[in-house]
């Protein structure tokens, strides 16, 4: 069996800023056509990683091979292969929607005869067509993000690097943006996306959880979530705060969080631990009005992994 050459291959990729190790020895591959998410808290190293992959920041150690090109030795050589949408993507606020796209088409040297078809296609995704003569500075936040993405996609990259593309975007525009990304993936583009929104990572093929510059988990979302299945309980009572406090005092409970009127409790195994919980809640004089085992979200997985809740075995 011949191994497929990965679209991106990270080997010990590291970046230091003075004494701070922002990105610490990352090693993983991203397959061609994969939709790959890098998630993590602020300061985890997401943006620095993306910048190194884009050839914008030089690694302090290690390397990443992007489409066969080394970011350490040939950062300029990487750029024709990628589209990079940074958090502060440079839109020209005094140019119109159309002029911004044309400007990036010039920059990426897209031949003029290919532009109309590509722009039409981008308009179809982004719904920006009716606004093509509006100044970019007068667009809403969501429309600006869609225009940024359109500008990044005017050349046909094999690898798309998106650094928190939906930051500050409302849910409706967020859906539109993801539709564009999904369409690119369906067309075979490799996409690496960084996000702080765990619900966005759930739709990716694989997810790397980054914490303090290191990968603490790397798998497909379903496998990550499966590890925590049957461990999260949603409970309600007349006084949810008293319920939360009571749960936090029970040794079997590894974490209890209030969500509005409900409390989520993490245990090792809901089936086995429920009798002890039930007895302790009764003893505290609290009557549970609702009980449900909830599907672990990627956010639960992330928080519990990073805060060191006891790991499941197997």
């Amino acid at each position: 069996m011949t191994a497929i050459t990965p679209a991106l291959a990270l080997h010990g990729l590291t970046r230091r800023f003075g004494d701070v190790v922002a990105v610490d020895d990352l090693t993983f591959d991203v397959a061609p056509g994969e939709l790959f998410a890098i998630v993590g808290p602020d300061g985890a190293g997401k943006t620095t990683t993306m910048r190194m992959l884009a050839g914008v920041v030089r690694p302090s150690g290690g390397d990443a091979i992007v489409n066969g090109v080394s970011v350490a030795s040939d950062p300029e050589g990487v750029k024709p292969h990628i589209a990079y949408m940074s958090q502060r993507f440079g839109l020209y606020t005094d140019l119109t929607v159309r002029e911004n796209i044309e400007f990036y088409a010039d920059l990426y040297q897209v031949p003029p005869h290919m532009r109309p078809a590509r722009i039409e296609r981008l308009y179809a995704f982004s719904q920006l067509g009716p606004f093509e003569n509006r100044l970019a500075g007068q667009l809403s936040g969501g429309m600006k993000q869609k225009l940024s993405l359109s500008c990044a996609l005017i050349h046909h990259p094999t690898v798309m690097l998106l650094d928190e593309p939906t930051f500050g975007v409302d849910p409706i525009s967020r859906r539109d943006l993801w539709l564009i990304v999904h369409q690119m993936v369906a067309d075979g583009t490799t996409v690496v996306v960084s996000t702080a929104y765990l619900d966005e990572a759930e739709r990716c093929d694989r997810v790397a959880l980054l914490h303090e510059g290191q990968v603490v988990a790397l798998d497909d979302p379903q496998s990550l979530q499966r590890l925590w299945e049957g461990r999260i309980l949603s409970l309600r009572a007349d006084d949810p705060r008293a319920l939360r406090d009571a749960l936090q005092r029970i040794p079997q409970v590894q974490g209890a969080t209030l969500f509005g009127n409900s409390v989520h409790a993490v245990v090792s195994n809901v089936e086995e631990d429920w009798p002890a919980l039930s007895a302790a809640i009764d003893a505290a004089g609290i009557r549970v009005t609702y009980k449900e085992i909830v599907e672990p979200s990627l956010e639960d997985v992330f928080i519990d992994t990073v805060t060191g809740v006891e790991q499941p075995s197997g």
Partner: protein
Amino acid sequence: MVDAVRVENLTRRFGDFTAVDSVSFTVAPGEIFGFLGPNGAGKTTTIKMLTALLRPTSGNASVAGYDVVEEPGAIKHRIGYMSQLFSLYGDLTVRENVMLFAGLFGVTGERLHQRRAWVLRMAGLESHQEQPTATLPLGWKQRLALGCALIHEPPVLFLDEPTSGVDPIARRGFWDLIDSIASRGTTVFVSTHYMEEAEYCHRLALMNRGSLIALATPQDLRASMIDPILQLATNDPPRAVEILQEVPGVIEASLYGRFVHAVVADLGTARETLHSALTQHGLVCEQVTSVTPSLEDVFVALVRQQGGAAVG
């Protein structure tokens, strides 16, 4: 008990454009109330009226028992306001920021000592008083901004996307704090379009195109999800979307990662119908599973039922 916020047929027009259209709701003391909506829904205009920065065209609103038109001065001393951190001065120290806000709200003497101590303890910044605010980690800045917004012990606190851009761990910590503040009777009015923030609220109001289109607890809103969602695994997702959009009973079909999500009218027959529609067109349909709708699914569905969000 007096409502913390009371809004009756509140309306605001700008020329021909009705930004807020006869909106009514009440918020109870100690409630964490989520105010949601896409851009252009009228959230900001409503909050400007509630904070007495903008006069209503018609209708009434009172905050902490005071009428927003008759007694705007009284309101400003009874509300706290925190937006995404921008209220802090980065080149001032932690202590200087607290003192600045105390001065702005007329907190002096013995009360100043008590309130300053409370803010620093609540924010966990007692040993960082002389640190320039700009050098604090984001989560700490957020707690400091919250403390400054509460320096004058307002009964009603307005938060505008307070934890956007923060990671999930810092977010949980922040909301624990908010809950402890609400548990002592402070009303918390949260304006956001992040469902992650909405999850922590007791009740949610959803605005679209100037109107209130839903008002319920997060649980009830989720349970009200109008139409079920099916997730399909297939060998050609983009083609599957095209095919499914033509199938009767499919309200909407869209790509979702490797999968296709289809909102259907009737879950009972849809699995079979969708599966056979794809196989008839020569596609392989490997799996059809039903998906628990998220709060965001509900939000998007409700907005679409109203003809979509405002554009522009």
